[in-house]
């Protein structure tokens, strides 16, 4: 029997030693409940199951030349990342409740928190949250706790996927959700000001940078605006972009969250990914999730523990800051290894490669007659929106036949933008691939 160590002989010995019959083990369960055991197929051997799973994996279409982004990006993952996270001392351990047996996990979390702070220019980060979307929801709840206000302003340039998540949670929790209209690809400061003035009870203004359309913004003015009205600024960011772009910390954001998938995690059809959250020191005790801290052991040696646990569910129960228990431990470790391998210069270089290639792609694609930038006056990092002469959905379908994932048609979330195609570039795309993309795109129009 797979994964059971005891032999039948040992089972009999064990029962005899403790003076029990096998039948007694489940005698406390009423007989009628035991009368419908689940009926699933009989088990497969390891070789058979690998064959079955390989077959299923081959029913998925990978190997496309990808220009699909939308918050999840196809970056190169250095070989050393997989080797390290494949060490089972890391992946078969649990939440570090016993610090003496978990200094490896705890120090790695502390280093992760430090790297997230350095990347975002914030003072405090937690040990991770589930993903970028739920991290943004946790940030909103945190702002509600800090300000005592029950209203949140979310700009429409925030990922529509994240906005739908925020809407689900806020609707259930009775928090007023206000969406502001964008102005030519960026948040409309005037509209946000009006909404802030409309109620003195706004907990936070939520923005994203680069935003869903790929447009890069300086959030300083929006942060000032939020603060003038007693609100916080929450910024969702794309971590790779911070190798190049002005940081949310410099721009005055109060809570920074993001999707850390780009930091060494495979796309894996939606997860597991990595939510991160960073904030100002003054809000540390309002932060959800695990936090590792440095302390001294009883011999005065520096050591690490989970700290500030009085915020958490296992201590505070219904009064906890969040119900979160598990974080994304192994994914946070992945990101820490990735950031360490790239290092100070390499991280900036990846960001620059993305920006350079995207800049080239933008100009190359704009040479195609009838193709225009949807927001021509804006700046971009690695993703941008094109207006095509025809329906973007149809173009994408045609290009899939050429093994090109051309990008994301925005019509799904912005019904008026039928011809808009969002194109993402990472350091993995070559000039040759971009030229080929331009060629097949032109031919398909």
């Amino acid at each position, binding site marked *: 029997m797979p994964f059971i160590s005891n032999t039948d002989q040992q089972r009999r010995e064990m029962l005899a030693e403790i003076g029990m019959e096998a039948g007694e083990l489940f005698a406390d369960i009423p007989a009628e409940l035991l009368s419908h055991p689940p009926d699933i197929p009989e088990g497969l051997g390891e070789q058979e199951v690998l064959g079955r799973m390989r077959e299923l994996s081959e029913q998925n279409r990978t190997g496309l030349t990808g220009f699909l982004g939308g918050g999840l990006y196809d970056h190169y993952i250095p070989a050393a990342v997989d080797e390290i996270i494949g060490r089972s001392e890391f992946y078969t351990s649990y939440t570090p409740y016993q610090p003496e047996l978990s200094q490896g996990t705890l120090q790695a979390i502390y280093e992760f928190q430090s790297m997230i702070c350095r990347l975002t220019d914030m003072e405090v980060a937690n040990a991770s949250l*589930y993903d970028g979307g739920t991290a943004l929801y946790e940030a909103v709840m945190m702002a509600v706790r800090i300000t005592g206000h029950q209203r949140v302003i979310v700009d429409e340039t925030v990922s529509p996927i994240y906005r739908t998540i925020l809407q689900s949670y806020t609707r259930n929790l009775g928090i007023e959700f206000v969406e502001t209209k964008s102005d030519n690809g960026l948040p409309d400061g005037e509209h946000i000001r009006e909404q802030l003035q409309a109620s003195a009870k706004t907990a936070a203004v939520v923005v994203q940078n680069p935003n869903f359309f790929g447009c890069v913004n300086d959030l300083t003015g929006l942060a000032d605006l939020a603060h003038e009205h007693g609100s916080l600024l929450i910024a969702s960011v794309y971590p790779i972009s911070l190798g190049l772009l002005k940081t949310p910390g410099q721009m005055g954001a109060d809570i920074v969250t993001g999707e850390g998938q780009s930091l060494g995690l495979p796309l894996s059809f939606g997860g597991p990914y990595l939510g991160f959250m960073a904030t100002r020191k003054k809000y540390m005790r309002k932060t959800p999730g695990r936090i590792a801290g440095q302390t001294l052991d009883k011999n005065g040696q520096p050591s690490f523990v989970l700290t500030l646990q009085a915020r958490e569910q*296992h201590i505070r129960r219904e009064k906890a800051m969040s*119900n979160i228990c598990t974080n994304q431990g192994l994914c946070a470790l992945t990101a820490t290894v990735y950031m360490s391998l790239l290092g100070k210069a390499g991280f900036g270089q990846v960001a620059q490669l993305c920006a350079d290639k995207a800049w080239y792609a933008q100009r190359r694609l704009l040479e195609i007659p009838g193709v225009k930038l949807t927001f021509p006056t804006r700046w971009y990092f690695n993703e941008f929106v094109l207006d095509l002469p025809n329906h973007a959905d149809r173009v994408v379908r045609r290009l899939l036949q050429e093994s090109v994932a051309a990008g994301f048609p925005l019509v799904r979330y912005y019904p008026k933008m039928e011809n808009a195609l969002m194109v993402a570039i990472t350091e993995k795309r070559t000039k040759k691939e971009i030229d080929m993309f331009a060629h097949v795109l032109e031919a398909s129009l």
Partner: protein
Amino acid sequence: MKLIFDKSVPHRRGVSLASNDISAPASLPAGLLRQAPAELPELSELDVVRHFTNLSNKNFGVDTGFYPLGSCTMKYNPKINERVCRLSGFAELHPLLPQLSTGEMLVQGALAVLYDMDMLLREICGLAAFTMQPLAGSHGELTGVMIMAAYHRQQGNRKDTILIPDSAHGTNPASAAIAGYEVQTVPSDAEGVMDIDALGQALGSHVAGVMLTCPNTLGIFNPKIAQICKMVHDVDGLMYYDGANLNAVLGKCRPGDMGFDICHLNLHKTFATPHGGGGPGSGPVGVCEKLEKFLPISVVCEREDGSFFLDYDRPDSIGYIAPFYGNFAIILRAYTYILMLGKAGLERVSENAVLNANYIRKKLMPYFDLPYPQTCKHECVFSASRQAALGVHAVDIAKGLIDRGFHPPTVYFPLIVPEAMMIEPTETESKETLDEFIDAMIALATQAQADPRAFQAYPTTTPVTRPDETLAARKPNVATLPTS
């Protein structure tokens, strides 16, 4: 051990990146750029690999040794699962592909896994439908309570309270409170299960539901579970099954048959996916038929021609609770595990988990107090009260176990047992391992009588010993920032 930042050497480089084949660099205005590079460490690939390899040596996992952390089900994580989730047809799949027009046909293998996993979990739990979306157990709880709220809204019920036993995991009251409910605690009776009279008194039209683990955190199956479900259903309340302890009854009986309406599972517990040093988990939620329409968007469905699609048109749904389709690579691992276990394997899991727990219970009974001495399921909860009277507390016994090569049990939980030591051996451990653990526990009990002061030194074999948690919380140092 030095922090990684302290090993940094200026201009040292790790991985080499692809060369830049673009001649004209992007030039964003200076006002949009960061002023100085992020102070990440500057290391060679060897430096990084060695740093993290050495950190891994300061960790204890299931692969290192026995890890009887109660309620966490630290069973062996089969290696085949790790290989499956790295297959490029899964690992390289972009989650937005099915949102392209005709894109669903590009991900049929992945949708087949999600669909079939739903079918298997329905059968295993006796429920009508599952969502794979919740990203961890506690996320599943929140999803379940939101479904509860949606049901009562549609029924026109005015309900503001969720009842939770005093033995519950902390996530239960936290999830209920975050979803906007008042939490009322129901005491346990002398047998360690929910006090049925107290439940009767607490029940009323204001009660939205009850969250229960069954067996509970004492490892005790509540024989009156059907009666409890009926009492709650009589006030149009819903029964929520915290699946954290499903390992105890896997393949034997089903939450749906017990009368539960909603159930979350922890794939990293019951279904052998790695705990990862604290995640990622995965917390699928199953519901009975009348709640199916409230499940989160999207849902994987099958067409008549046998192909799969994602249904986004669900007007009664609680909406989106996660961006995509759950922690897919975790679901893949659990799916692989279930395919390998099969029908007979499921039953073997609970039979061996329960035998192992009772073996420990019986063998240690003479040495430690056992407040609830009846047959347990997957775990047993001892109290170190007898030893505490001599000055040796549960935490001291935990640290003593570390020196003897074991991960300690969960201590000081559940809250209703003083000096609790919650031991969950799981089905994958052998008699030899259990015997060694039992011997170590007996040796510690003996030592507690002979030389209680010796425990103050434990553990002595670890890189650090008894870190000062009060200091950590009083003067938080949670990040090291560059000195500029």
